[in-house]
């Protein structure tokens, strides 16, 4: 019975139990749909390559229809021209959307809503040309000379974006990648946290640890939940790749196989880093309500990482953008977006990944020791310092029988003084909402400023708020009733029953 096999059993349980939940399936579907929509919709809405419909009515030069089509072709837009007998019928066609713009008497354009500037330019140019043709005919110029004179010149329009080789659409794709990475790392990290706290508070951990070593339990839990997250990220990345390659109008260098593969690798690294920290911190909390107070700082760090990675997308050549792509704390979100923006030179991602992996290895040792020392403790929530002292071989004191070595009692945090956990949880909740709102508004504003796209900004802000809210719910958690057991008799004076 090896620890590895047992760890795998733990991982399988996590996979099975969690993949069964409707919440997981719903989040998977939503994320895939959102990413595919984000890639496909701009192409469909923008219509820079799509076909447009122009209606003609009233007194119109005979060549106007052809002129409009020719002008459209010159800028790569296919245009269908339709003639309408009556103004009423033509306007009805505009109102119901079957015609994008109506040309009335060759001197008025009618739109359903705001004028499409590109189409307006095409149609206006065509009207000018057909008017010139009319006047040239009157002046006796031959048709061939005139055509040669008026032949449209093809003009290319290029969006440079912030980075060479990447367009604003690529930046949007990188934004979305940041959101997806942050969401999955935060969500699955929080699952590890709540899972550890659930096992500790329901006391099942004592049954488990009587059969398997603590490190197998923690490693198995992190692996199982991580595989689930990897599945979600891989499916999302695959959907993004399929959407980007099958929709012919989309040309996004940021959404390519190699870039997405790196994103998956960085998810694994980022998740492993944060899940180890979350797992170790979760073992300090005695009750689900305390999870937030022990892991809160990490969540703040994670949100900040998200924030700066976001800001770095638009300016990947600044010094600070390079630094955060190397720091193991920020790299899991900052480096993949840097790769997506084509700003990372070849050895950079590999070296940063190695650095992060080394950090993870160190955290596993430290976190595993904290976990093993704290997870069986059944007093109030511990502090890291106490736990570390208890984990040291020279201080093996694990006061499992409810007796506390002096000093630990004094420095324990929430719940030690019997203050009600609900008020703690409530103020924590209020704080979370405030933090989430500020972060969401800040990110939304930043996104709008950088991408110039209000819809993406709103989406990013909403997603930010939703994620922070979701994490805080996972931590605060529904107050899980602990499994059966007699009321705790710990701490009572030693008495024997002598009822003869």
């Amino acid at each position, binding site marked *: 019975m090896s620890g590895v096999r*047992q760890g795998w*059993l733990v991982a399988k349980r996590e996979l099975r139990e969690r993949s069964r939940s409707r919440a997981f399936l719903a989040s998977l579907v939503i994320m895939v749909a959102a990413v595919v929509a984000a890639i496909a919709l701009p192409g469909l809405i923008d219509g820079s390559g799509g076909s447009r419909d122009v209606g003609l009515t009233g007194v119109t030069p005979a060549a106007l229809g052809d002129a409009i089509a020719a002008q459209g072709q010159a800028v790569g837009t296919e245009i269908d021209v339709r003639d309408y007998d009556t103004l009423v019928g033509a306007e009805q066609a505009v109102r119901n959307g079957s015609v994008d713009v109506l040309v009335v008497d060759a001197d008025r354009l009618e739109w359903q809503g705001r004028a499409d500037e590109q189409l307006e330019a095409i149609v206006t140019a065509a009207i000018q040309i057909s008017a010139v043709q009319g006047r040239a005919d009157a002046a006796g110029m031959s048709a061939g000379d005139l055509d040669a004179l008026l032949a449209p010149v093809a003009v290319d329009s290029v969006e440079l974006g912030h980075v060479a080789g990447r367009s604003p659409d690529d930046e949007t794709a990188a934004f979305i990648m940041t959101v997806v990475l942050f969401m999955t790392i935060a969500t699955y990290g929080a699952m590890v946290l709540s899972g550890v706290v659930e096992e500790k508070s329901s006391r099942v951990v004592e049954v488990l640890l*009587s059969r398997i070593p603590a490190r197998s339990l923690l490693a198995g839990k992190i692996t199982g939940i991580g595989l689930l997250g990897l599945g979600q990220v891989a499916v999302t990345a695959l959907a993004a790749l399929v959407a980007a390659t099958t929709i012919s109008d989309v040309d996004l260098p940021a959404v390519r196989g190699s870039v997405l593969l790196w994103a998956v690798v960085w998810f694994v690294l980022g998740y492993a880093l944060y899940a180890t920290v979350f797992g170790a911190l979760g073992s300090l909390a005695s009750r689900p309500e305390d999870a937030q107070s022990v892991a809160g700082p990490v969540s703040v760090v994670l949100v900040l990482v998200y924030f700066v990675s976001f800001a770095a997308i638009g300016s990947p050549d600044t010094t600070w953008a390079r630094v955060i792509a190397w720091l193991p704390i920020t790299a899991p979100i900052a480096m993949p977006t840097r790769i997506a923006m084509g700003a990372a030179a070849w050895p950079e991602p590999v070296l940063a990944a190695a650095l992060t992996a080394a950090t993870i290895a160190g955290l596993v040792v430290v976190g595993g020791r904290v976990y093993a020392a704290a997870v069986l403790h059944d007093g109030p929530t511990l502090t890291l310092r106490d736990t570390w002292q208890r984990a040291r071989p020279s201080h093996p004191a694990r006061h499992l029988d409810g007796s506390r070595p002096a000093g630990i009692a004094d420095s324990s945090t929430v719940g030690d003084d019997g203050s009600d956990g609900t008020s703690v949880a409530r103020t924590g909740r209020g704080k979370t909402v405030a933090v989430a709102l500020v972060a969401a508004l800040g990110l939304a504003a930043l996104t709008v400023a950088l991408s110039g796209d209000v819809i993406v900004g709103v989406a990013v802000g909403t997603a930010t708020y939703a994620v922070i809210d979701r994490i805080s719910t996972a931590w605060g958690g529904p107050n899980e009733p602990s499994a059966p057991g007699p009321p705790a008799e710990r701490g009572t004076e030693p008495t*024997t029953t002598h009822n*003869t």
Partner: protein
Amino acid sequence: MNASLAFTAATKSFGALRALDACTFTAEPGRITGFLGPNGAGKTTAMRAVFGLVELDGGAVTWNGRAITVDDRARFGYMPEERGLYPRMRVRDQLVYLGSLCTRSTSAVGRAVDDWLGRFDLTSRADDRLDALSHGNQQRVQLIAALVNEPELIVLDEPFSGLDPLAVTNMSELLSEVAGAGATVLFSSHQLDLVEHVCEDVVVIDHGRIVLAGDLEELRASVPDRFVDIAYRGVGPDWTAVPDAELVDAADGRARLRMTRDVDVAHIAASVDQAADVVAFTYQPPTLSELFRRAVQP
């Protein structure tokens, strides 16, 4: 010291508190050993030491004369005092999971789980979440979790705590059955009178020290004190007048006398019969509680 659980000078301190103080005792296969003592005496700490949940400061816990390994623990069963399982996991899945942590054959675990669920009338609840079950049924699931790997050693921390009289009987029958099949059974209790008839061997611990250990009937017989319990009708006489006996306790229609084992019981019986309308008369060695009091009061 074969096929048994042995504590040898096991010592453990939590700060200034000495939870285990050079504890030495054994639990033998095929027998039910009661590990008894007041709350806070060190029972839970000792039991956790068997499973490596507590690291001893000194001394050792051995199984079959050797240090206990992870493989050994795969053949142990443990029901902690703080009961706990996954509240939201289905009953059968949960038991199969806990069982498979100990053994390689999932199908054998599945069969064992189904057998136990059937025995406790829980087959119909196999696919329910644990928290949908009543408190009593959750306790049964917890017990199955400790027994599902057919353990050679089963350690139960306060298994009788919170049980009604019928459940106490069922539990003690179950323990007898498990021990009868050859397993070593060690259970703890702070309610000495409740479990007096369950244990064959007892280990009594107080303030971390073992104060009494051995075959319960031997221990009771070896003490010089004997007791006579009398139930009678009508007006009670002056029981202090019975020769060679000392009145310990008297209530309506009942009296308890103490004497040494040298005193002729027939003689006592005759004088008691003369003094009152006797309904019941029993002569026996001290109860477990009295043994305990003798042991802790020097």
